[in-house]
Structures are given as structure tokens and as C-alpha cells.
């Protein structure tokens, strides 16, 4: 029978690019598999209260079986616990807050992207490999920002030159750049998603500083890179996916995505695609009406991921390789190339906090 999926994601306003990529990746997988899935995708406007109400609607009125789509951690925290309590499945294509990985983990909650700290941890690991010993850390002042610095420090072994939290949404980084200059750091680790990252990278390039930058993939994703341009060239960043990961699934995905939508897929598109692939694999094994069987089928993660090997840790978050990428230019297009592996079969730090 038809499986009903409710997708709550950001389709309007500033953060829409991410939501659209997740949705497009997700839909592509369904289309390719010809799976019998009905997707109801709706815009959460990046507001937690709207997201909660959409979840209510999808559960109560649309009677969906599975929910997915949320981009932002704060929205996920608002929506997921209530949804899974009502016996629905939630597959996260992006947000992976520590709360949902640890204390508030749930048997019906699966994260197909990463635990939030993962890419930061990998960046810390990479910093060790690169021989950095005095890092300057920079993130916006909100929970995800603090998690991203904690994740880095969890693996990074060197000293911390300074740790600076900026206002969320800040676009002006001259004061921080001055502090970096004065700090004597040998590397800068930063987490500044979206427009913040664009502004920072451009301003950093203008400042004439040449201390190496490293960060999680979020500021270097395919959509954003074109806007940063030259200023991002050569920067190392960590990601569980890149378009040049060498496996047939990924190759096919990148090609078909480009053919379908006329643009290169981003990290988020791959996550949307993988989420749908996981769902389809589980559908093949069990009916969603048999929750236990369906859950086991999901847990088996018996699908071909665009990132290669993929398995779930006990708290239903990925065990996966995380790569180091470098920003390059291919023709006119700025993109990433994998230059190394930061961590292999990496899980997450919250497994022990999770009792399910």
C-alpha cells in the first residue's frame, strides 16, 4: 500500500535553499525507485511553532506514517519528541542535536545525516593531522554554535588561542578578524552557517590574513560556494559526503540530480536522497503498519548510501567516514574535492546517554 510521508522543511525565506535541496534529493530517490510513496511537503518558514503545528496537521489530518525534512536543530527539538511519542517514525535528513542523540533518543527516531558534532569532531581530528597546535575558535552564540566548538575540542589536541562567540546572524566580522590577527593562532576553526560564513570568508580574504581556515562543510556547501567565490579557494572543510566520492550510487546520484534539476547537488541533497533510500529499503522489507518490523528494517540500514558504507549506531545515528575536502574551481564552478579522510567509521559521543 502507499506509504504517506510528511515533509516539514524550510521552503521560503532565507534558509529555503537547504530545504529545497533536501526535498529535491528526497523526491529524486523516490522517483528513481518508482516507490509507492506519497509525499506531503510543507513549509515551516523556519519557525518552530509552525513546524509543530505542521507536524500536528500531518499526523492528525493527513495521517502520515513517517515524518522527515526538518533542517534546523531547534525545530527538530520542538517537533521530534512529540511525533515519535505518537508512534510515528521520524527520519532526520539534516539536524542532529545532541539532545535527540542522547537523553531524548527514541526508537522511532533515525538520523540519516549526522549527529551535529560529527563534522566538528572530524575537523578537530583533521587539525591534529595537519599539525595545528594553536587554534582560534569562532561560532555564533547559540546551542549549535557551542556544540560545534565542543565537538572540535573533543578531538583536537592542541591549545586554544581564543574562543569567540558572535551574535547569531552577524554579518560583520572585522572585530573578530582583528582578534585573530592579534591572537598568534596558527589555525582558525569556525562554524558560521549560511550568510554568516559567506560574509566571514569574504572579509577574511580582504583582510590579508593567511592563517589557514578549517570548518565543517556547512559554509562550503555547493549552493553557498558560488557566492563566496575566490575567497574560499583552498579552504579545508569536513564532510561525510562529496560529489567525487567514488561509488556507483553516488555517481548515478550526482548525474541524475544534475540532469533533473540543472544544478550540482549539495550535501543536503545527498542527505535527502539517502533518507529516501533508507525509507524505500525498509518499505521493501516490512509494512509500516507493523512498527516493530519496520523499525528493524530501518535499523538494518540496508540501502546504498551516496557516501558509501553506512550503518546505525545504537542511538540510531550514522556510523560513517568523514572526509576532508578542499575548495577548488572546476571551470567556472567552485566546488570541493576530497583530499583525505578525517575519520573512519565514526559514530558519536552520546551513545551512552541514550536508553531505548
Amino acid at each position, binding site marked *: 500500500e502507499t506509504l504517506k510521508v510528511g515533509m516539514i522543511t524550510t*521552503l*521560503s*525565506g532565507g534558509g529555503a535553499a537547504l530545504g529545497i535541496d533536501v526535498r529535491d534529493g528526497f523526491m529524486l530517490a523516490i522517483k528513481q525507485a518508482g516507490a509507492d510513496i506519497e509525499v506531503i511537503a*510543507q*513549509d515551516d518558514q523556519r*519557525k*518552530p*511553532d509552525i513546524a*509543530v*503545528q505542521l507536524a*500536528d*496537521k500531518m499526523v*492528525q*489530518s493527513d495521517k502520515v506514517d513517517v515524518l522527515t525534512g526538518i533542517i534546523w*536543530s*531547534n525545530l527538530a*527539538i*520542538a517537533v521530534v*519528541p*512529540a511525533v515519535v*511519542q505518537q508512534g510515528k517514525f521520524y527520519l532526520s535528513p539534516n539536524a542532529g*542535536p545532541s*539532545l535527540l542523540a542522547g537523553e531524548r533518543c527514541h526508537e522511532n527516531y533515525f538520523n540519516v545525516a549526522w549527529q551535529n558534532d560529527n563534522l566538528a569532531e572530524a575537523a578537530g581530528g583533521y587539525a591534529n593531522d595537519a599539525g595545528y597546535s594553536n587554534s582560534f575558535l569562532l561560532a555564533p*552564540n*547559540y*546551542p*549549535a554554535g*557551542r556544540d560545534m566548538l565542543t565537538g572540535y575540542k573533543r578531538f583536537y589536541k592542541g591549545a586554544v588561542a581564543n574562543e569567540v*562567540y558572535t*551574535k*547569531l546572524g552577524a554579518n560583520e566580522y572585522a572585530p573578530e578578524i582583528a582578534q585573530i590577527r592579534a591572537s598568534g593562532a596558527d589555525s582558525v576553526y569556525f562554524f558560521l552557517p549560511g550568510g554568516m560564513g559567506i560574509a566571514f570568508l569574504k572579509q577574511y580574504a580582504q583582510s590579508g590574513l593567511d592563517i589557514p581556515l578549517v570548518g565543517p562543510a556547512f559554509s562550503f556547501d555547493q549552493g553557498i560556494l558560488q557566492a563566496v567565490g575566490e575567497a574560499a579557494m583552498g579552504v579545508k572543510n569536513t564532510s561525510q559526503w562529496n560529489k567525487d566520492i567514488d561509488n556507483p550510487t553516488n555517481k548515478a546520484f550526482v548525474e541524475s540530480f544534475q540532469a533533473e534539476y540543472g544544478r550540482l547537488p549539495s550535501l543536503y541533497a545527498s542527505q535527502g536522497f539517502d533518507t529516501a533510500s533508507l525509507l524505500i529499503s525498509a518499505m521493501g522489507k516490512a509494512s509500516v503498519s507493523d512498527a516493530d518490523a519496520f523499525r528493524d528494517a530501518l535499523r538494518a540500514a540496508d540501502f546504498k548510501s551516496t557516501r558509501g558504507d553506512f550503518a546505525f549506531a545504537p542511538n540510531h545515528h550514522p556510523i560513517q567516514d568523514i572526509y576532508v575536502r578542499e575548495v577548488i574551481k572546476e571551470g567556472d564552478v567552485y566546488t570541493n574535492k576530497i583530499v583525505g579522510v578525517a575519520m573512519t567509521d565514526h559514530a558519536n559521543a552520546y551513545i551512552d546517554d541514550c536508553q531505548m
Partner: protein
Amino acid sequence: MNREAAISLLIAAGLLAAPLLGNAFDEPFVITLATKVAILGLAGTGLNIALGYGGMVSLGHAAFFGLGGYVAGILASHALNYEPLFTAPLLVEGTTQMLIIWPVAIVVSGVAALVIGALSLRTTGVFFIMITLAFAQMVYYFAISWPAYGGEDGLSIYIRSEFPGLNTLNPLHFFAICYVLLILAIGFSFLLSQSRFGLALGGARQNAQRLATVGISPFRVKLTAFVISGMMAGLAGALYADLNRFVSPSMLSWHTSGEIMVFVILGGTRRLFGPAAGAALYIVLENTLGDVSEHWLLLLGALLVALVLFARGGVIGILAGQTRHA
């Protein structure tokens, strides 16, 4: 009965009928939406007292709305985690009883309104708009970066708070609570607007100097109205927290202030049912336009512009004509 009264009755009846129909036709989401309309209408009714009757254009009501929400969230989360709020000087436990949460929310937001109002009422006009915004933004950034109750991530309540004799988890019951409170608030606004205090408040809005020369302190009158207004917004916030079983700083953001203000203007300032009508229209548009197009915000914007241009005095204004009680 004049025309506005008839329309008001119609709106009240419609808002009551929608969830009942939703329930009958197995569309429970309609109940949620109607509840949301009632709650945001309540917040708007509160703002209408300050903005409409008192002429105090506050762009900071999200602060009171959010504080009410956080009161509910914090009390409930302490109760659910069995952690007392304070141990010294006396033991204060959390609670999930609406009948306790509401008064606390009302008092907390009232006190906040008293402080913010007292400081802000030195200014008038757009300066007042901006200083109330400033205070709300302070609370907002504080909530975002203060980790104890979740910061930007917010705070989940998981279980809706309880009301004696009702099952609040039943959407209809919860709607009934919100609806009754909305009607009570509107009734109170009506009495207030017709009372001697309402007369003085209108005087303060139109000409504070005139009021002062007849020996009534415009400051005291306005501050009183501002506090009442903030209290209603706080109560609405507490209900909103229970509706979503979740509070977050977004309740405190200037968008929320702006949205509540839009409900009031859209419905018609100084119209008793204006805020509820505005909230209903906005929420219905928000929930139906999305199916029309991915670019539904554009449609919404265009519709709102058209409404401002052609519907003087808001929705109630076009329906009921220009006259209104001053």
C-alpha cells in the same frame, strides 16, 4: 444591534463552529488552527488595549507573550523532571496545573510590562515603538544565549498542562479553554473601553496634554493599560506554550511582535473582534496559500497590501463601516 455587533457575533460563532465541524468531519487539524486563532487572538486583544485604545504602538509585546510561554515551559519542565525551581529561601516546585501556571504567567508578564512600560512611556510615537522593541530584543537575545532553558533550541514540555475536570490532551477541550479565555478577554476589553477608565485612556491617546490639564495623569492611565495589555499577552503565551508543548526564543522575536501587531491592524484597531478576525484571516491564508504555490508568501504579501489599500479600518472596518466607539 448595530452592524459591528452582528459581525462580532458571527465571528465568535464561526470560531466556535469551525473546530466542532473539524471534529465531526475528522479533520482534527482544524481544531488546532482554531485554537491557534483563539490564542493569538487573545494576544492581539491584549495588544489592542495598548495599541488601539491607548495609542501605545508597542513592538515589544513578544516579550510578554514569550515570558508567559516561558513561565509555562519552565514550571512544567521542572514538574516533569521533579526538580524544584528554588530550594532557598523556600521550596518552590514546578507545576503542570494551568490554574497555577496562568496566574504566575500573568503576574510575571505584568511585572515585566510594568517595568518596560514605566521606562518606555517617557517617549511617544515612533520612539515608543522602538524602545519597546529594544526591550523585547534584549529579552530575546538573553533567551537565545542563556543555556539553562535550552537557549535557541527552546524548551519542550512534552505533556500539555492540566485543567481540572477537562482532558487538555483532547484538542476540543483545550480549544474550549482557549476560546472561553478569548471571549472573556474581549468582554473585559469591551467593558474597559466603555468605562471611565476607557474614556481617560482614549483621552490619553488623543491628547495627553489635555488629559493632564483636567487633572488625570496620562502616564498612570497609560501604564495601567499597558500592564493589562501585557498580562493578556502573557496569558496567551502560556496557552501557546501548551498548544505547541514547546517554547523557544522565536516566541520572543520581533517577528512575533510584528505578527501580533499585524493581526490587530488587519482585523481593525479598536475593534473588539478585530484581533481575532485578523488572526483568523492571517492563519487561514497562511495555511491555504502554501498549497497554491511555493511562492505563497508573495501571494500573502500582495493580498495584505490589497487589504490595506481597499479595506480601511481592517477587516471589521470594511464589513462594519467606519463608525466605531471612540
